[in-house]
């Protein structure tokens, strides 16, 4: 695999990062923390490498983290705790699975390869998954990396060379 580009984004002042990107994407405001981080890091990566390098039919997205969308899940759980004031939030419910972030990215950039978000112990565990995925020969590119809410994201665009 050849690394085409890499982005490291700290999970800090993401709203400011969003403004600096100069992209108008209102859905950003509604995203949970994990999706904001993964989406922003991907946008920065694609600004760096250019979207023209992507083969939309043969680009996959593989992300992972240890805690996934735990922050959002706790927030959603909090909306259900009081049985006398029981109002589970649909907007929070939407983000109670971590692969929403990979789906958001795929939809926005019309990437039709597979998407996956793994919950792993550490970044090293992601490497064999990416290698095995690329070894299938079905993908030309992959947006891959570690996205840990509260910490940061490290994403790479790799190709099959």
């Amino acid at each position: 695999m050849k690394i085409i580009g890499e982005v490291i984004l700290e999970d800090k002042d993401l709203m400011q990062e969003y403004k600096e990107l100069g992209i108008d994407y209102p859905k950003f405001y509604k995203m949970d923390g994990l999706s904001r981080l993964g989406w922003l890091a991907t946008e920065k990566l694609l600004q760096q490498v250019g979207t023209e390098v992507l083969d939309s039919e043969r680009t996959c997205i593989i992300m992972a983290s240890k805690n996934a969308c735990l922050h959002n899940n706790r927030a959603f759980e909090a909306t259900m705790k009081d049985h006398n004031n029981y109002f589970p939030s649909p907007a929070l419910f939407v983000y109670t699975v971590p692969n929403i972030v990979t789906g958001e990215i795929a939809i926005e950039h019309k990437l039709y390869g597979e998407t996956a978000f793994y919950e792993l112990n550490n970044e090293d565990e992601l490497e064999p998954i990416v290698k095995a995925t690329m070894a299938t020969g079905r993908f030309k590119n992959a947006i891959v990396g570690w996205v840990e809410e509260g910490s940061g994201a490290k994403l790479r665009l790799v190709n099959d060379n």
Partner: protein
Amino acid sequence: MEQLEQELKARIIEALNLEEMTVEQIDSDAPLFGEGLGLDSIDSLELIMMLDKYYGIKLTDKTIAKQVLANVRTLAEYVNEHRTK
């Protein structure tokens, strides 16, 4: 009624996490869905929950819900007439 409209705008911003948006930026007559604020189906569920939580209104009829959620003015009129809290 204007005060209720302002209150609803603030609740919409809070419920839908429309950071960066202010009450003043929401036009009472602008469509909430499609154009205007550009809300989606999940947002409509969130607004229905908001009506139940703060005003004791249970919107279960789809046709009525569509009319009520047309814009902030229609929402305020409905809340004013049907609120139980």
